[in-house]
């Protein structure tokens, strides 16, 4: 650890406390994490903080999932956003920007790039950002001393910058770990050992964290077990949904003769085999059920990035399914979410992974009040969330025949659902409204950093001197 512990005057003393928020994926990035990041920043502002968000430039998102400027509209204007000129070099598609070496062996070049990046920090594609991020947080801290740093992962390279500010200036920090790092949320089990380079980084940074947030209980449980002495600092801060994404579903009465519209909205990040099972289930259902034979299935969202954007096996499968009334309509801007949900009669919740995966869209799907058809493992955390939902088909796994039954069941629910059913579903989801989820977490963090009226000693005040560690 560095000896250069140089405490700077804090922004306290009657002024608003200042937090630096490492939030790569902050709006206008069209990423699913953008909502959580936005709400977190807004909550800090609402609780009296000055907040500086550090993210990467907009051009970088154009290479990936694109931009959605409507997302920025709901960012509190008091949030200061700094965009660093960092981009994923592997996603560059302008061949004029390629060196000759890269052009001769694009795959090998990327593989060498990744090796270099991982030497800097053990994370593929992002490791190389370490020094720029470190420089940015230190610079920000010097300009406007921070009382707290919140590091939202992924990318995990944020942890290096978090550590830098702690090491040099003892700025207390919290880690919004979301899906965690050392946990393989898809396969279950450990993604890397504690003695690996990543493992050493993780344990080192978590050791001094004020709080570690995870998106569900199984992930939090994994971390409590892995680091028993940190157990009381690990909190579940779920993803949630945004009220303005919800459609008006009152008084709906779909016409069975016209057929129904099923919808999926989200990144197509599952395997082609997964998608194939769902589409097979859809085809079987159409053969067996006359209502479904007249129905449509719309898929919206992002497919692939960089040179393979919308040019992969998933696209082929969707095109092949066009004859079965399946269509792909690309991503939906945030401002059109409510209208898109409103145009559908039932939702198809396609999710990878198992009990460690919740995803954000389950909350949104649930809160729409529309029937939800689960296409995911039975033992999936989404099942815990959806339990009790009156318009949920239940999870049956990925067998196409069983999914076909679920399609029919969802159609039946869509036709028979009453306003009361829909209201019950919405009411059940209300506890997952983003402010309801994030406000207590941010308040807790605020209390940890600032002296409370009850006079509990504030770790930040002492931590900044380097005498006491949180």
């Amino acid at each position: 650890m560095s000896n250069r512990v140089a405490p700077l005057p804090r922004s306290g003393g009657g002024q608003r406390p200042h937090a630096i928020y490492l939030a790569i994926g902050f709006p206008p990035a069209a990423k699913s994490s953008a909502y959580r990041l936005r709400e977190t920043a807004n909550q800090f502002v609402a609780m009296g903080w000055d907040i500086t968000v550090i993210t990467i430039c907009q051009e970088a998102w154009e290479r990936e999932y694109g931009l959605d400027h409507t997302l920025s509209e709901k960012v509190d204007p008091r949030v200061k956003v700094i965009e660093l000129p960092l981009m994923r070099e592997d996603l560059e598609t302008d061949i004029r920007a390629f060196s000759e070496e890269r052009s001769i062996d694009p795959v090998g070049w990327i593989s060498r790039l990744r090796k270099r990046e991982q030497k800097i920090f053990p994370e593929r594609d992002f490791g190389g950002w370490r020094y720029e991020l470190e420089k940015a947080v230190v610079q920000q801290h010097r300009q406007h001393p921070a009382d707290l740093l919140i590091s939202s992962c992924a990318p995990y390279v944020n942890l290096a910058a978090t550590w830098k500010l702690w090491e040099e200036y003892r700025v207390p920090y919290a880690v919004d770990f979301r899906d965690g790092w050392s946990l393989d949320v898809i396969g279950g089990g450990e993604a890397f050992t504690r003695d690996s380079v990543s493992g050493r980084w993780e344990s080192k940074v978590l050791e001094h964290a004020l709080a570690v947030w995870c998106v569900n209980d199984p992930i939090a449980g994994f971390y409590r077990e892995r680091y028993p002495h940190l157990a009381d600092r690990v909190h579940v801060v779920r993803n949630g949904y945004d009220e303005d994404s919800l459609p008006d579903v009152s008084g709906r009465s779909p016409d069975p003769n016209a057929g129904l519209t099923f919808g999926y909205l989200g990144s197509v990040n599952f395997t082609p085999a997964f998608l194939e099972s769902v589409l097979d289930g859809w085809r079987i259902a159409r053969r067996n059920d006359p209502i479904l034979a007249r129905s449509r299935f719309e898929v919206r969202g992002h497919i692939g990035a960089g040179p393979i954007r919308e040019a992969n096996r998933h696209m082929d499968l969707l095109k092949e399914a066009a004859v079965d009334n399946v269509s792909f309509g690309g991503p939906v801007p945030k401002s059109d979410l409510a209208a898109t949900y409103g145009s559908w009669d039932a939702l198809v919740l396609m999710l990878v992974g198992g009990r460690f995966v919740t995803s954000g869209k389950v909350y949104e799907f649930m809160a729409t009040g529309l029937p939800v058809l689960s296409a995911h493992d039975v033992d999936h955390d989404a099942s815990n969330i959806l339990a009790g939902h009156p318009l949920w088909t239940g999870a049956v796994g990925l067998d196409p025949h069983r999914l076909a039954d679920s399609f029919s069941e969802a159609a039946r629910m869509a036709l028979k659902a009453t306003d009361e059913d829909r209201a019950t579903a919405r009411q059940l989801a209300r506890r997952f409204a983003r402010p309801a989820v994030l406000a207590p977490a941010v308040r807790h963090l605020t209390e940890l950093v600032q002296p409370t009226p009850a006079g509990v000693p504030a770790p930040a005040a002492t931590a900044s001197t380097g005498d006491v560690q949180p």
Partner: protein
Amino acid sequence: MTAVLIVATAAPKQPGVLVEALERFRSKDATVTVACFFDSEELGIDPTLAEIRTFAVPAEKWDARFRKALERAPANRKIWLHARRSTWLRQQYRRADLLVALDARAVHTVWQMAQRNTRAGACYGLVPAQKALAGNRSEPVGKRLERRVAAAAGIGARGARSAAEQTIRTTLNKATGQRVMSNPAGAWLWTRAAAAPRIPDRLRSKLAVRLHDSAVRAGRTAAGARAASTAAQRISSLATRADVLTKAAKTELTLGHQPSGLHDAIRAQLALADDLLPRDTKKAAAAVSMAWSLSSNRVLHFDRLTSPMSTDPGAFVAPFRASTAARKLSQPRGRLTPAAPAPTDRPLRLLVTTLINDNFLPEILERYRAMPNVEVRFLDLYEDELTRPLALSGSTVMEHLLAGDSSYGAKVEEWLRPHLDWADTIFVDWCQATAALFTLPDPGSTRIIVRLHSFEAFNFWPHLVDFSRVDDVVFVSDHLRDLSTAVLPQLTDGPRLRVIDNAMDLQRYLRSKPADARFNLGMVGFSSVAKDPRWTIEVLRKLRERDERYRLTLIGSNFNDRASKPAKDYGRLLNQDLAELEPLGAVRRYGQTDDVPAALQEVGVIVSSSVRESFHCGLVEGAASGAVPVVRDWPFFAGKPHGARTLFPADWVVESPAEAADRIFAATATEEQWREIGQAAAEHALKTWDWSVTQSGFDRLLLDD
């Protein structure tokens, strides 16, 4: 109208995506050309959507210059070399407004086109191309001019640089080639140059490898070894030094030699492993693995008529005993509880396990499956596709053993623990991966028995077995036990060592032989160098010099000459022999058969000409059939306390082809004598090695202890 040129090197896996993109381009009034580096027919796309053509130059139109350029070029540049010879494609890329690489291999070709058409956009992927088309691409004139100048300068500079590099490369290659290195003065000069001070390691190592390679290929192995070793001494980096010496050793192995610098290379890899061990067990494991890979190379032990291991086993493995990392692989970890005695209140649970090869197990499995007091399970570690990879990587086992803990270890534990929990006794056939894996986790109170046949003693696997967790090691002969204990000293301080003959049902070989079988020599198995069939052919030649009635039947699959260079060389000589003798009817290849007893019926003299055997079932089966046995005193073990001479009756064993011919003449002098000697051999074989006799050894091993 916008012109779009798409370059594809293979038919896209998502043709639908391409079709949709072409439709979108058309809807934006773009004219599209698809240039294919494959048969454009494969695309199967509506020709109204785009002009589609192949640009690969057909092989019959390659001239010498083009062929040479292709030889030198990296894979993806080859595509550009084809592209630039196509007049049609040249016109297309010069007039295109947008150049698109459809796949990774096409990127360089588009990059080159973009250097020549500085006005066009250049994209990788169809969606980026559509975005580029939709976006505003108008650039300031100054910027375009700057790009054009830079591109033109780049093309010129690259051309000049490439020519200069090529000239230097050619000159250096010639100067360090075989012709120069075969000349003593040239070799001396370059050896001095490679050892000159202040040359960076990177260059010195490249030079050393090149000099060694040229010298060895020119037949001057000693000069090559000198150049490599002298240069290596000057290299400060342990990794680079190990790399140079390893490459030199590998070159010689590829050429079929026993490398003169073999031990230097092994020591260098082990020194590197020892150095890395405290900080990077993965890399340390890779270095030890490389050392073992060199020392276990089949050229050294299996494809030649001698092996440095059998000559002096202790000296051969000495570098491993001196290495901390290598010693750590064999370090005894012990077990928490000793093996429990066999249960008395229920049947013994016996797990018989192997990896792929179960040739020596049928009799054993049949016997104990029939016993009411034994419950038998059989496990082939290769069977399950999911777990199979865990049993196939020695280097991963090494990595685990050096790290002391790994996710690999956890997976093996998860896989094998249920078997360990179920079984009272595990009989592991072959001392290879199966034995290493079953001793990776603590076997608890389960008794572990490992049987070592022969090849394993020359391999690295036994060095990864934790013999402190093994209760019994079974050998099939005394001489294999001697060799194994010399190579693996840990064997002498732990498990019980037993010698139990192979399980063979010999009764079925007893059949009456026709009279003319007297002059027919036979070999069962001749597919490898170790069987040395040419030794038998020499015996046959000696016999036929005096009596042309003698002939030879070779039973089994043909000689495999694909294993290595020495095997190929041996195969060539054997083929010459066969080409000469088969037309005369002196040699017949019987081929592979499931009915060996029938094949042996026509064999009057069974020959074991091998240089190395652990037991030689084929010979014993021949003897049991009533053929006169003639056994070469297997050279790997000749003169040692145990070998063919102690395994078989003294009169069966001969020193040389001449002595073999004498024994055969004497034994086959008359039909009565031949039948009498054959009968005696059959009786000896049956009363010594038949399963009805040897099974008692297994009963004692599995049931009594």
